[in-house]
């Protein structure tokens, strides 16, 4: 098998018998890390669920104050980036260096677009509208009408926005880390260390990237949709 010939040429760390054992161990380690990440985000999801049930009206009102277009845009963007990442892993498995570099670059561009739009437009817009507790909490008359429509208490809506900024903030931080991983991968790929060496690195970065995508898949309905968008 052609793959086996490549695998034998790939670098194997001294604690492993062969490349396959190293691949299994590396991948398993990444999954273990992701399991801890589930619980890392889990604390925020737990707090969110708790307070959403206690202050249901306020969380519904807060959800209506978010722009659903942004949420849907991010979701589609991340799904596209997951596709290019998955195809990138496939390209690495097939030792196609150019395809790998193009696909990783596309993933990077979409990830960067996510972070850029979120910070520059959505969060900055929230700040201008007075929806950032602690920095600028002064909801406009329109926002107040929405809050009053649901008979919600102002401080409880502020609590929703604290959850919103913490959860999307932690997610955005993971995106930035992912961008760093993709950059490193791109450099190694250019040097031929991936397709000519350890192609499993792409799988590991891919696992992380898909995990961050899954977190957003849950954040999108929880923050933007779950109160329903009908008024």
């Amino acid at each position: 098998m052609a793959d086996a010939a490549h695998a034998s040429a790939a670098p194997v760390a001294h604690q492993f018998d062969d490349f396959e054992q190293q691949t299994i161990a590396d991948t398993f380690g990444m999954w273990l890390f992701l399991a801890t990440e589930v619980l890392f985000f889990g604390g925020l999801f737990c707090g969110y669920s708790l307070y959403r049930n206690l202050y249901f009206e306020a969380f519904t009102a807060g959800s209506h104050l978010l722009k659903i277009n942004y949420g849907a845009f991010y979701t589609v963007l991340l799904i596209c980036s997951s596709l290019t990442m998955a195809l990138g892993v496939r390209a690495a498995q097939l030792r196609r260096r150019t395809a790998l570099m193009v696909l990783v670059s596309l993933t990077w561009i979409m990830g960067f677009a996510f972070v850029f739009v979120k910070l520059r437009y959505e969060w900055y817009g929230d700040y201008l509208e007075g929806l950032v507790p602690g920095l600028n909490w002064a909801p406009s008359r329109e926002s107040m009408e929405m809050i009053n429509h649901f008979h919600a208490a102002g401080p409880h809506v502020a609590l929703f926005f604290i959850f919103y900024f913490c959860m999307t903030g932690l997610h955005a931080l993971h995106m930035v880390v992912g961008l760093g991983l993709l950059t490193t991968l791109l450099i190694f790929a250019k040097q031929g260390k991936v397709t000519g060496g350890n192609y499993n690195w792409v799988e590991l970065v891919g696992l992380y990237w898909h995990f961050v995508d899954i977190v957003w898949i849950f954040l999108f309905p929880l923050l933007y949709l779950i109160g329903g968008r009908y008024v």
Partner: protein
Amino acid sequence: MSEHVLPKKLYFMVFLALVVLTAITTGVAFIDLGPFNTVVALVIAVIKGSLVVLFFMHLKYQTGMTRVVILAALLWLAVLIGITMSDVFTRHWTEKGKAWQQSSIISPDSVTRSTVFWLPDRA
């Protein structure tokens, strides 16, 4: 294992399913289903997450050890959320007046039928 090279078509099918499900979940949010809006949104999110884990993350082709890790993560997440919820939302089931209930940051009084739709009212 990662030696399984999956056909490109599979990735595009999963991608298409994810986009369609995103459109559905966004559309359904504009229809008033009462409490079922939440249920539908979460069920669709779970389906989307499963698709990503199974195909993009190749769980289908991983060793059993990886499955144990994922099950453990989900189990502890369920413990985290389940125990917290069962604590806070059953506090009003017992008589008031015990010190440990009154000193709680979440007063049992704040958990009523109006805030938690599935809880029975205490007469």
